[in-house]
């Protein structure tokens, strides 16, 4: 735990800390692994890249509460401060996009830019959360019938390979069982959609990168209309395009980074007190 009582979150930091920092936020039930292995090494030549595990995920501790978006945004800001003094670009995938947006709303002075990858609208459905929390147990027992956004790609990867991947699956189940002992479910379901005014409060340049197949385009266009400096890119693929089409997603991300003005990376001057 930190001195303030917040959990010390697991983070992978690659590249020199003297470079501009990009911070990745994974999706629900995800980990920093995909971002560290699939994206960070593409960027470390030019950037300092940090990917962290949210509370209750990956190798981070799972405190009993603190799973609202505002809590996650505060965690994200603590991770930023641990790794850099300056503004960062935050890249949030799926549910992680909500955390990234909430962070940009709460900490505008810390945001050099924001990239939202295929984030569906809020609220999260109880069905999706339950499929995630309970479905792995069924799959471990050989029952592939439960379905849900998180479970479907997991099942596809395990269907022909369940015995060989048993430890990996047990690992996921162990982590989800720990999460089930917390207030994660109640608090995620309690988060309300962002208002128009909240989106209008995002001051940094924002890139929306959405898949053609996941069906969240109406939500993407709402964000595009409300956020001041915002561009939408749609790439062929489904919600797992961050894995299946990593080259294309990385290219879109690099195009966004290349388009950021230098001044975005400089801290805003502190307000002058009268």
């Amino acid at each position, binding site marked *: 735990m930190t001195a303030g009582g917040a959990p010390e979150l697991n983070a992978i930091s690659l590249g020199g800390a003297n470079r501009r920092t990009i911070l990745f936020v994974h999706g629900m039930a995800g980990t920093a692994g995909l971002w560290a292995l699939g994206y960070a090494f593409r960027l470390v030549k030019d950037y300092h890249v940090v990917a962290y595990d949210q509370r209750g995920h*990956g190798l981070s501790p799972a405190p009993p509460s603190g799973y609202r978006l505002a809590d996650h945004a505060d965690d994200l800001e603590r991770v930023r401060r641990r790794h850099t003094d300056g503004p960062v670009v935050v890249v949030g995938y799926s549910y992680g996009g909500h955390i990234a947006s909430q962070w940009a709303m709460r900490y505008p002075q810390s945001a050099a830019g924001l990239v939202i990858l295929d984030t569906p609208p809020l609220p999260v459905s109880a069905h999706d959360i339950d499929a995630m929390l309970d479905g792995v147990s069924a799959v471990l027992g050989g029952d592939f019938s439960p379905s849900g956004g998180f479970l479907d790609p997991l099942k596809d990867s395990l269907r022909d390979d369940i015995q060989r991947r048993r430890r990996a699956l047990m690992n996921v189940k162990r982590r989800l069982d720990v999460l089930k002992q917390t207030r994660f479910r109640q608090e995620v379901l309690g988060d309300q959609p962002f208002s128009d005014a909240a989106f209008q409060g995002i001051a940094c340049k924002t890139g929306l990168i959405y898949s053609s197949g996941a069906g969240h385009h109406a939500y993407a266009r709402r964000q595009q209309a409300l956020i001041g400096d915002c561009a939408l890119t749609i790439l062929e693929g489904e919600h797992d395009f961050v894995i299946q089409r990593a080259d294309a997603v990385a290219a879109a991300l690099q195009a966004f980074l290349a388009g950021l003005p230098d001044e975005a990376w400089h801290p805003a001057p502190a307000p002058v007190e009268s």
Partner: protein
Amino acid sequence: MAITKEQAIQAIRDAVHQVVGEEWAQEMTIDGDTTLSGGLELDSIEIAKVIEIMLKRFPAVDFENWFAQMAMERIVGMTVGDIAAFIAASSPELAA
């Protein structure tokens, strides 16, 4: 200081033990032919953690540029021997 491939394999073994814990590690046989994902069944965050430990353990080895050439499937599919050979080859005076 020169690093042999066997010394590098031992360093990877130590890193894996550190990441997965002794309970799992006792069941694992880790040699040069073992793959990170298939053989050790490490998931992506565990592999990333092992790599991060190796980056700190061998700061003179240019892992970042090496991994930058690879897709994620290639990274997770690497053998312990692949990584150890790279460390040894990057060592200034490769020992026999």
